[in-house]
């Protein structure tokens, strides 16, 4: 019997790990192509302007979506923390170090998105649009967060204006943004944007025939 303690990474390069890096580098450095997708039955009925985060996105796009899906909640929390003010892009990337806004290595690999905030608050309706334009469209597409909620008189309760959820996340491979003063489902859809839908536990159960 031989017992080995796996040490955290150090400068010292072990041969086995070199192999792993080579495989990883070959994959990352040599760029990206879309793989031929296998046919999978759709587990949720999507509307024509929606796509499934896990079946229709891959690679960097999937990674960015995963981060955005977590980030939208952080943004909402910050919005409250900052006294009902939307965090700026530089606050997200620098102060909060929040992915996918933070400009780290992963950000570089994933297409160096340049993010812009359009603040469209009106009265007690708070509405922010964060748009991420991909610098390298071979690495990843363009993303957009639409976050929207209203406050009741006592200021404590809020929910989405149009929808069940106070935000939606959109994706478009080609860059075509409607006039920034008029960004909504109605203008995004004709410009080729798709709303990304995350898979839920209920969908998984359905797939397994449990429900």
């Amino acid at each position, binding site marked *: 019997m031989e017992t080995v303690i796996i040490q955290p*990474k150090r400068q010292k390069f072990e041969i086995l790990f070199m192999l792993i890096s080579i495989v990883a580098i070959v994959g990352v450095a040599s760029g990206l192509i879309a793989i031929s997708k296998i046919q999978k039955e759709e587990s949720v009925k999507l509307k024509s302007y929606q796509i499934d985060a896990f079946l229709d996105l*891959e690679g960097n796009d999937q990674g960015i979506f995963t981060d955005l899906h977590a980030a939208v909640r952080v943004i909402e929390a910050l919005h409250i923390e900052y006294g009902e003010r939307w965090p700026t892009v530089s606050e997200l990337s620098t102060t909060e170090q929040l992915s996918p806004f933070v400009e780290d290595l992963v950000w570089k690999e994933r297409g160096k998105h340049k993010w812009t905030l359009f603040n469209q608050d009106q009265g007690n309706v708070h509405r922010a649009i964060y748009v991420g334009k991909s610098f390298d469209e071979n690495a990843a597409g363009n993303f957009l967060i639409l976050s929207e909620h209203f406050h009741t008189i006592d200021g404590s309760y809020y929910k989405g204006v149009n929808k069940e959820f106070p935000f939606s996340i959109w994706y478009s491979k080609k860059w075509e943004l409607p006039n920034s003063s008029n960004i909504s489902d109605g203008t995004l859809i004709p410009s080729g944007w798709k709303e990304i839908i995350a898979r839920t536990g209920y969908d998984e159960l359905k797939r397994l025939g449990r429900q």
Partner: protein
Amino acid sequence: MANGVNIKVENLSLSFGKNEVLQNINFEAKAGEIHCVIGPNGGGKTTFAKSLLGQTYHNGKITFEWIEKRGIVGYVPQIINIDKTLPVNVLDFIALCIQKRPAFLGVDKKFKKQVDETLDKLEMKNKSKYLFSELSGGERQRVLFAQALIPNPQLLILDEPMNSVDKSGAEVFSRIIDGLKQNGATVIWIHHDLEQVQKIADKVSCINKTVVFSGEPKSVMNEKNLLKIFSSRQGE
């Protein structure tokens, strides 16, 4: 020859900057077992696998207790995209990978045979001279799998991408992995197909930052636990 490894992970934690990706992971895998790891996208499965390989700056204790002596570790990375223009054919790619393996320095002839056999088992023998650019996504995945099998690993860590393995590929993978298990190897298999996991896993652990549940598929893959795994749109 039954040389596998018992793996014990105690209080493994890991952050990327402010972002805590793994938190107090406790995990055990035994020799001769297929241990599947499931969890939502971004839950930290790949990061966990890399920690086992000593590829991360982790906190906590990871112990490998090899049944005999320190054995061979095979790793199938989760690469979804490989460059179309990668100017390497299948055989060269595998050779490139294997030659970096200590056990195989200077024994080219021996592994040549194993490469042939492995490609044959993976139904890729007729494509051994193909360039990466000429392979489909599923075929590239088979090649990544092949390199991890030579020489025979006593610990195999597979990080399977969500989309790239085709159905017949999945069957072939399963068969080969079952063979390794029969030989006493330890298999850690990051898997996305819960239906498959129910069939093949001896143990299953769900990782979403921390271990959400762990045990035999029969007892832990129940409705309540499965609903916990996949974040609904509301988040909780």
